[in-house]
């Protein structure tokens, strides 16, 4: 193979445009029916949430209607026990989860929802711990893993309860709770990936160049862990929504005034004999969003591993 010039046509000579590249990497999603269904479910709620930022059928917190109405032409999904429009409340409920975070200082609002910030937090913390444990090994590994083991030993809900009992309710507290509960899992994942990647020759090459451990960890290892990490993060957003819903249902989730799906279920549950619709809709909302994210992540993972083969 002394002539390495590739034969014409074997490799496209001009680089494809950025959009074409992006489209190509996105198209992998549509290869999987499962991932497509998942994405549609998620997008449905994201769009609904975006719409609710500018418009809802009725104000979400106003008791303007007869109580416990079944679905009808004015209130498409019916009303709750206080006569509020369920559709409007559902729509606004998306915001806190996916689109905005309310800061405790003077009603400030920050973009991107609690669930996503929580996952970002746990990925940051987890990746840091996992990389150090996996790459450095030895004492770093022992101590980190011991600490994480202890954290994992806590039942998640107990951890939430403890954090919330100690710090009170609030969007930031929920983010913190999600971070704390999610970080050990991310750290374990990143550690195992790092343990694998660090045996590769290109890591040896970086070491023989005398690169610092931080460079090796964050520049050489981390980018190669991104595939599984992205899939895992997607699953984690699902679990975070799951957890927020559960906390809301237990009455210790996101604080008012914005409607919270879990809390909606909890309140409607008390009137379950008179009005089943009010309990069905928010339940369906949470389940569909979480399932959507799971399907999406699952399909994506399947396609990614098939791609590797």
């Amino acid at each position, binding site marked *: 193979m002394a002539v390495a010039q590739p034969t014409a046509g074997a490799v496209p000579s001009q680089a494809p445009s950025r959009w074409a590249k992006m489209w190509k990497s996105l198209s992998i999603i549509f290869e999987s029916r499962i991932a497509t269904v998942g994405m549609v479910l998620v997008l449905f709620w994201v769009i609904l949430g975006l719409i609710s930022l500018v418009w809802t059928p009725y104000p979400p917190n106003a008791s303007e209607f007869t109580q416990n109405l079944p679905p009808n032409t004015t209130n498409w999904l019916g009303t709750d026990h206080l006569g509020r429009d369920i559709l409007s409340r559902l729509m606004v409920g998306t915001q806190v989860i996916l689109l905005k975070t309310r800061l405790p200082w003077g009603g400030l609002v920050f973009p991107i929802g609690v669930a996503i910030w929580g996952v970002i937090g746990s990925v940051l913390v987890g990746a840091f711990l996992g990389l150090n444990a996996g790459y450095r090994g030895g004492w770093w590994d022992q101590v980190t893993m011991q600490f994480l083991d*202890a954290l994992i*030993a*806590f*039942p998640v809900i107990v951890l939430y309860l403890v954090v919330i009992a*100690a710090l009170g309710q609030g969007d930031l507290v929920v983010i913190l709770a999600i971070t704390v509960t999610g970080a050990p899992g991310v750290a374990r994942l990143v550690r195992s990936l790092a343990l694998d990647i660090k045996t590769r020759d290109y890591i040896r090459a970086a070491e023989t160049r005398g690169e610092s451990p931080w460079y090796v960890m964050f520049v050489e290892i981390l980018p190669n862990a991104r595939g599984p990490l992205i899939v895992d993060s997607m699953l984690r957003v699902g679990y975070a929504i799951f957890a927020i819903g*559960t906390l809301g249902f*237990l009455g210790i989730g996101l604080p008012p005034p914005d409607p919270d799906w879990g809390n909606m279920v909890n309140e409607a549950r008390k009137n379950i004999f008179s009005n089943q619709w009010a309990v069905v809709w928010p339940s369906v909302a949470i*389940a569909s969003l979480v399932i959507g994210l799971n*399907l999406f992540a699952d399909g994506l993972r399947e396609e990614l591993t098939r791609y590797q083969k």
Partner: protein
Amino acid sequence: MARFIIRSLVSTFITLIIVSVALFLLLEVGSGDITVKILGVFSTPEQRASYRNQLGLDDPVYLRYIDWLIGNEWRAERQVGFDLVTAPNPQTGEDTWWADVDGQLIRWSLEEGELMKLVRQEDGSTVASLADAVWTTDEGGQESFWGVDDKNNAVKWVRGEGAEVWVLTKAGLRKEGDGPQDYIPLRKGLIRGDAGKSLQYGRPVSVTLWPRVRNTLVLAGVAFLVVMPLALIFGIIAGINEGKPIDRFISVTSLGATATPEFVTGIFLILIFGIWLQWLPAVAIFTSADAIFENPALLALPVLTLTAVELGYVIRMTRASMVEVMGSPYIRTAILKGMPYWRVVARHAVRNALMAPITIIMLHVNWLIGGVVVVETIFGYPGLGKYIFDAAIFGDVNAVEAAAMLTVIIAVLTRILGDLAYTFLNPRIRYA
């Protein structure tokens, strides 16, 4: 193998220590002044201070942690000078503390400046008499006496200087004279089964906790028994039919089941079986802690809810593992050796395929406990989960600590079980 097990045990031990410290700090220190919770927001600072003294909250944190974990009668014994022992209260059966003076169980009380000696009789009653001259004099000339009072504290009385203390009785706070100067609230510590008094119920945590634990074990046990065989069977079926319609169906269904929060599943089950079909009671009323034994039908919906969530999870684990094993070279070898398909699956694949799920399932137990909290709350089931939740909401520090520690211990023990099972199943470790 010995190395592996010992490692796992040592690691577990360290884990438990870390957890207990973290839990203690978070709750005792993080949740602020618990006397406010007990005495109410209208109590005066003076009352709270007195009460803090009685609870021993003024001690340094490390001392309180040790008291909480392993008890403190050894510390009190040094002051009192006698062995301190417990004996049951004939009425309630709860343990009470006594000083063992030459075989006699004795407590003391200070009444109008005079130290009285209360000697415990065989039947549990006490006979009061004037105590002997036991005051000791320190350098400052102050005469004091360390003894056990009738509220299970080791206390220090100072002669002639009865302190004014606020005592919490059923009727409320009452001011008493002749009180002790210093308190060591006697306890055996968590590892000896004494988690202190529940602030919510006023009774020892251990007494209120055990029936709840039992109920939860029944719930989780039944769910476990239902889940495991079903999940393994479905997981294996899906795994050996990878990509076929039956696999798609099992996979997507189980994904849906795990991804749906327990409270949603629970609500739907109530709607379907309780309200629309009316086969089962929609809202279970547990009249007593023993209700589940009297009416097992009450168990159906909680078990079903837990099962739905766990089933999906275990199926997915088993399936993934099975798929991996079925694609491995040694399965290829077995097939190309001409082994019948069922034999390949049963003898070659299943054992290897179960190794991974068993450890993961065991790690998953604390997730299960999370589910238990929700399920018990939905159905009002008197179990450990609801206990923790109620205690956390009330701020019942002792109860939360004990219950949380218990869940952690359960989680950790199951993990060790998982490790052992893995060690047993995997000859590479067993014969390393």
